[in-house]
């Protein structure tokens, strides 16, 4: 059997992207951005606070951190759930002690499952953002658009029922989306999104329902990937974060434009007793270099947007 002739036709072979969500942008040529107080680097701690139902579907793929053992996996469920009862409180304490803000990327279901945690997130001054309904509702190309719309509406409803208009950010769980997800997210009133980890600075992301601000949130430099999927040592992650900061800080000094250091952390990973001191030491290392603006995702997105032509 041989391939059909159209296998080597390239309808999108042209200058720029092979889709119309955003134009190609060269990072070193992006318009400079100034952060408050003349800071060089905006520090964005993005806390992945997802809820993993024990009966979550395992197809078409298991979300990272999903139930990997036979049902009923109390092992997987309770290890994740630890993050929402213990780990997140260790992160809060370490961050508050250093005056560092955070954005909680919350499953909508978290508002139902952990109402007291929502109060504590509000009291800590963290931004509540929406990371889908739960980790068992992944957005992907096999989901009917009507289902996806309903999940987004329900997740937004659950979080806005607790936090109101403060919920402006969307993170697609497991960095997974269908072709429609950005349109539906914008249609539900979200203004920033972080599902696409394809830049170090924000950019405008076009949808059928308006423009989203795409925020940098790495799946490569992330505690869950490095420490849980790749089994690296805790210090390999914290060292990598400090290396990223050194690079971004140097670029900010060289170009005069602010940069963003995103620190993606997961309460059931980084909030473990044997890791939390390394997390604190990492924040100390960043703050000691000076020129840091600790901010939420919404604050960074708004500050960037205000300086766009």
């Amino acid at each position, binding site marked *: 059997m041989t391939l059909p002739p159209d296998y080597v036709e390239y309808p999108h072979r042209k200058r720029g992207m092979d889709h119309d969500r955003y134009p190609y942008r060269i990072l070193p040529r992006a318009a400079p951005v100034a952060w408050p107080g003349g800071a060089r680097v905006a520090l964005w701690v993005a806390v992945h606070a997802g809820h993993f139902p024990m*009966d979550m579907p395992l197809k078409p793929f298991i979300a990272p951190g999903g139930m990997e053992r036979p049902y*009923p996996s109390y092992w997987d469920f309770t290890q994740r759930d630890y993050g929402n*009862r213990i780990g997140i409180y260790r992160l809060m304490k370490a961050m508050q002690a250093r005056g560092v803000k955070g954005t909680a990327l919350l499953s909508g279901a978290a508002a139902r499952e952990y109402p007291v945690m929502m109060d504590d997130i509000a009291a800590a001054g963290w931004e509540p953002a929406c990371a889908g309904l739960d980790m068992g509702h992944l957005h992907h190309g096999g989901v009917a658009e009507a289902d996806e719309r309903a999940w987004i509406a329900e997740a937004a409803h659950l979080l806005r029922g607790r936090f109101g208009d403060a919920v402006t950010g969307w993170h697609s769980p497991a960095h997974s989306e269908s072709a429609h997800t950005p349109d539906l997210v914008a249609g539900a009133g979200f203004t920033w999104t972080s599902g696409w980890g394809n830049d170090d600075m924000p950019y405008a992301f076009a949808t059928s329902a308006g423009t989203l601000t795409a925020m940098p949130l790495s799946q490569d430099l992330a505690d869950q990937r490095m420490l849980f999927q790749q089994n690296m040592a805790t210090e390999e992650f914290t060292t990598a974060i400090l290396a990223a900061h050194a690079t971004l800080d140097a670029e900010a000094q060289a170009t005069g434009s602010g940069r963003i250091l995103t620190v993606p952390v997961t309460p059931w990973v980084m909030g473990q007793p044997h890791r939390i*001191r390394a997390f604190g030491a990492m924040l100390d290392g960043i703050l000691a270099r000076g020129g840091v603006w600790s901010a939420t995702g919404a604050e960074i997105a708004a500050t960037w947007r205000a300086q766009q032509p």
Partner: protein
Amino acid sequence: MLSNPGHYDHMPYRRRPKIAWPNGARIAVWLAPNIEHYELNPPPNARRNPWPRPLPDVAGYSWRDHGNRAGFWRMADTMAKYGVRGSVSLNVAVCDHFPEIIERCCELDWELFSHGTYNTRYFYGMSEDMQRELIRDSRETILRASGQRLDGWLTPALSNDETTQHVLAEEGILYTLDMTHDDQPTPLNTRAGRLVSIPYSLEVNDVPLFVSRNTSADRYVAICNAQFDQLYEEGAESGTVLCLPLHPYLIGQPHRIAALDAVLAHITSHDKVWLATGREIAQHYIDHHLADHQSWIAEGTP
């Protein structure tokens, strides 16, 4: 299918009612050696294949068998050196196969609790009657072999089914380790009886660390010590629990036993440590703190 085990309530880790351990200790440390037997020719289970290779899986079987022949004896001596007792997560058939191991545990004043009959007989798909029968067999076997009461439970290979905790509570078990949601003991909700959870660990457990997570012996020491240091510090506010789950076929290997020695040296160099057994932790919690925790939950964890 259940979306949640449904056995415990959310207890945010702030402003919890204080746990006070005996003698002003900040932390209860307990060691849970898993003394297991994996059968050469186990029956199949629909949800989990006991061995990855066709039977007999000599590679898997013989690795684990090392634990009972060599690793256990080395591990027990190292623990005795530091005066640290074990609370044995016991496949109770070991009492029949290798009674010398049980004699050594008793000589060292270790607790025996049940980790099922064999590590190759999973609870996945067991009727409640079958689970009940197996729990009773565990109770009788442990009593016969050691004179001890059966108080604790860890389902073999963490293979518990939806009803297991209910059956455990009905059978009068004091504490379960099937959930790793906390660093302190917590109340559990079951349809009858009274069962509590005390912390076991998958974070400082030698199986995930050495088999799955590519951890060297040196890193094992660093992780265990860091876990202890943090929980020791937090224990100044309210008592915490550190469990070190051990498997003789891993930690008892010649190239790793010094790591256990180093961790125990670090732990026992601190003065506010309660070197306890699982039973002692559960009983102290039930006697002094369970009601406070239940009231706090009922008040909405203010």
